[in-house]
């Protein structure tokens, strides 16, 4: 039986309530892909951090969510796109406790720990795309 949601599906991120909508969309995909409750929670939490980054640091953008497979197992991939200022120092941005904003500095580094695959594509002046994947165990 094919899952209800395969995607990809996109949602704009331009306000607070969009962060909530992205969380809900990612949860739907995680449930349909039958991730464990803990893995669902980890992925949704990571998505929440990243969607907020897109909004606050990227000046808004969009999220794309889809079901993926590596041939052996299914998973959920979520990517966060903005056309903001980009991240000049990646090492610093990925370090625990570092924040250019008002956060705890756990957004990027914390999100990375919560997922199986983490990819960050950024260019100063062009924008940032962060892609995360969680596999079904």
């Amino acid at each position: 039986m094919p899952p209800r949601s395969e995607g990809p599906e996109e949602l704009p991120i331009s306000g607070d309530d969009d962060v909530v909508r992205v969380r809900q969309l990612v949860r739907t995909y995680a449930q349909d892909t039958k991730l464990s409750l803990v893995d669902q929670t980890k992925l949704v939490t990571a998505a929440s951090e990243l969607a907020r980054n897109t909004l606050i640091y990227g000046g808004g953008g969009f999220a794309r969510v889809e079901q993926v497979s590596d041939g052996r197992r299914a998973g959920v991939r979520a990517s966060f796109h903005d056309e903001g200022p980009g991240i000049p120092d990646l090492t610093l941005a990925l370090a625990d406790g570092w924040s250019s904003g008002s956060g705890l500095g756990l957004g990027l580094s914390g999100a990375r720990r919560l997922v199986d695959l983490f990819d960050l594509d950024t260019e100063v002046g062009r924008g940032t795309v962060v892609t995360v994947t969680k596999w079904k165990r």
Partner: protein
Amino acid sequence: MDQRVPILKIGGVLLVSIQIDLQDQSVLALQEDLAEKISATGAHGVVIDISAVEIVDSFIGRMFATIASISRLFDADTVVVGMRPAVAITLVELGLTLGGVRTALDLERGMKILEQLRTRDA
């Protein structure tokens, strides 16, 4: 869309039961509402019930610490109760230790802790 979290008063304790998917504005509004309410009622304790909360990210986690600090300024203690196991596991992995925020398994134990703190301080 302005969703506000209700604050209930039970004796000298304010109970905040979070039943909605919190957006950042609601979090900020709750902090303000709670400060007003503690100041107005002279409550000695605040219980934040998160048993219905499916995720706690760094923003929401920081809210607990902020509320605890604000309460402290009004001589009130804060206890966060009812955290789901999946949320606890995720918080630790995220790196959010909630240091300085008192937690309890459920509402009953949270109320008991606040009672003990009050008698000790008295």
